[in-house]
């Protein structure tokens, strides 16, 4: 199935470039300018909100630093030093400048700059979300196509149930149940965490940190035992997250395919004698891929966020776990820093999907 799936891609690209014609570039540039503008505005909004959240906190940040036994003078000094005596707009401008320079302050929990913590946690989240999306696309797209072709028959019903369950299931609960069955009962996979404890201890020695992704790094370092151990640990969270991605992608694929299969060009292709398999998997799916790209990007963005709960369940040392741990340590710098980073990734992916849409679909320009 995936073979057919892969084969249609170049064909689509060819068709697209043939349709696109000459005036493509300026239009994309114009569109790009608009996207960039809304990106800046949305990011600004995100920072306004996180700044407001920081102001909302009932804890006085200066008091938190000096402690309850400080004198009034000490308190005032710290307040001035932290810029808290400045008017709110000035404080916001300072915050804005800090964020742009990547300075989210220091984490109370790890006593390292938040940005460094984020940098070491983000690849783990990215690794999880990427593999899960990959799974969702590789299984979800063919499943959606099959269900559209068999509309109203049993494959369609099965997919509907799978989708509905996916929309209704708490991700953290599915994670726990998966751990219970596949780790606790069957012992097929590794437990929570990225590695077995024995590997975790010597990880720094065996593996060079090229990318921060445990699979890529261990493979590049040639530490294959680490690689395979990591694989048994990542499998379960990837399948759990991938299931949600699959539920969403397959349902959308089905709906786009139904739309395409009802078009006249499909009838024309059939009349011409094009084999049915080619009609479905090349002609119809090729066109359905256009809106699907947006869907896939959206689900990828959603997985980055959804990883908060999954990472907590599987003790996966990503950004989600970092944020929740910081929450309980009342480590607001870390929480807001993490929120900004995930928010930025989310927003950029959203807008990127918007942009991609116009690149692949000539009608949207």
């Amino acid at each position, binding site marked *: 199935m995936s073979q057919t799936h892969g084969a249609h891609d170049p064909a689509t690209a060819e068709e697209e470039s043939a349709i696109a014609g000459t005036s493509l570039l300026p239009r994309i540039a114009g569109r790009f300018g608009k996207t960039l503008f*809304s990106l800046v*505005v*949305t990011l600004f*909004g*995100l920072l306004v*909100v*996180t700044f407001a*959240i*920081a102001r*909302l*906190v*009932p804890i006085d940040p200066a008091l938190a630093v000096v402690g309850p036994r400080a004198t009034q003078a000490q308190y005032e000094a710290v307040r001035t030093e932290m810029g808290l005596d400045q008017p709110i707009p000035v404080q916001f401008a300072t915050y804005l400048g800090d964020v742009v320079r990547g300075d989210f302050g220091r984490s109370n929990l790890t006593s390292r700059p938040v940005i460094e913590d984020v940098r070491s946690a983000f690849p783990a989240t990215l690794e999880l979300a990427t593999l899960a999306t990959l799974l969702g696309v590789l299984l979800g797209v063919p499943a959606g196509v099959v269900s559209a072709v068999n509309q109203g028959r049993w494959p369609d019903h099965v997919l509907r149930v799978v989708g*509905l*369950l996916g*929309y*209704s*299931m*708490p*991700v*953290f*609960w599915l994670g*726990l*149940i998966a*751990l*219970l069955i596949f780790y*606790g009962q069957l012992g097929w996979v590794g437990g929570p965490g990225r590695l077995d404890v024995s590997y975790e201890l010597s990880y720094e020695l065996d593996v060079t940190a090229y990318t921060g992704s445990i699979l890529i790094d261990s493979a590049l370092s040639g530490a294959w035992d680490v690689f395979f151990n990591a694989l048994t640990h990542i499998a379960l969270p990837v399948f759990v997250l991938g299931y949600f991605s699959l539920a969403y992608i397959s*349902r959308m694929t089905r*709906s786009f395919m*139904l*739309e395409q299969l009802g078009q006249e060009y499909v009838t024309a292709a059939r009349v011409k004698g094009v084999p049915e398999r080619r009609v479905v998997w090349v002609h119809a799916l090729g066109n359905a891929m256009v809106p699907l790209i947006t869907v896939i990007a959206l689900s990828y*963005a*959603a997985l*980055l*966020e*959804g990883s*908060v*709960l999954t990472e*907590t*369940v599987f003790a996966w040392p990503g950004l989600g776990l970092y*944020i*929740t741990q910081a*929450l*309980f340590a*009342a480590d*607001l710098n870390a*929480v*807001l820093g*993490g*929120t900004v980073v*995930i*928010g930025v990734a*989310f*927003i950029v992916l*959203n*807008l990127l999907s918007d942009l991609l849409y116009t690149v692949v679909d000539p009608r949207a320009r």
Partner: protein
Amino acid sequence: MSDTVSKPAGGLKAWLTSDTPASRLQARAIGLWFAWSDLVRNPLAVAGLVIVVLLILMAIFAPLIATDPPNQQNLADRLMAPGVGGHILGTDELGRDIWSRIVYGSRVTLQVVALVALTAPVFGLVVGTVAGTIGGWTDRVLMRITDIFLAFPRLILALAFVAALGPGIVNAIFAIALTAWPPYARVARAETLSVRRADYIAAARLQGAGTLRIITGHIMPMCLSSVIIRVTLDMAGIILTAAGLGFLGLGAQPPLAEWGAMISTGRQYLLSHWWVATMPGLAILTVSLGFNLLGDSLRDVLDPRGAQR
């Protein structure tokens, strides 16, 4: 969905299926009746409806249905398996009856759902209709703000809000509502744009109706059905978010019987006592499945345009 309220002049059924409605009330009742009969013909919709109704009944009659008080501890009976010692679904780490806690937990879930459903859609409706009716800069600014909120990751934002406000069920509801309104604003604005140039609006304006009156009296009612469908479809997501916050320890605080928080405590005993975490999860799954089934079918019935998905 109670449409059996009005006078049974010459048989309720005849009144409800009449081709010539005599009053506005009757016309509306007929519309609802046909939507209702479409709905009950769909077995999945009925299943969803039954689940939701059961949830409501469970919440109302919790003291009668539960076998024990939800917070009654009995350390001698801790972590008993389902069915043992008269505990249908077993007991948790403090010997509390899990079935009773799930029954009482339905109250918390319903409370969350009701409060979010009463705030976020109303706020979104106001923003959307105002933006759509007034247009111009008001529209641009309001919609830009909506887009900004829409572009945020919801759970993360709710997390950050709860972090600032402090954990607790009320703050969790507030945080969820704060992140849930933008889609309603979008829906309401789209509906508004489709009716604001209609003749009946112009007629109302010529009669001297002000903008406020036009929005509340003539535009908002037109947006209601889309917003209601959206609310039903969103319910499952709201329940899951609330449960997620509870699971992380940021929503309902112990000893309140909340399903997400119950899973969180059950997590520690997962491998040795599976039922503690499994049972509340099944409750969440069932309820959000019910809302999804109902919402899906409601959309098919009330909004034929979106039926294909």
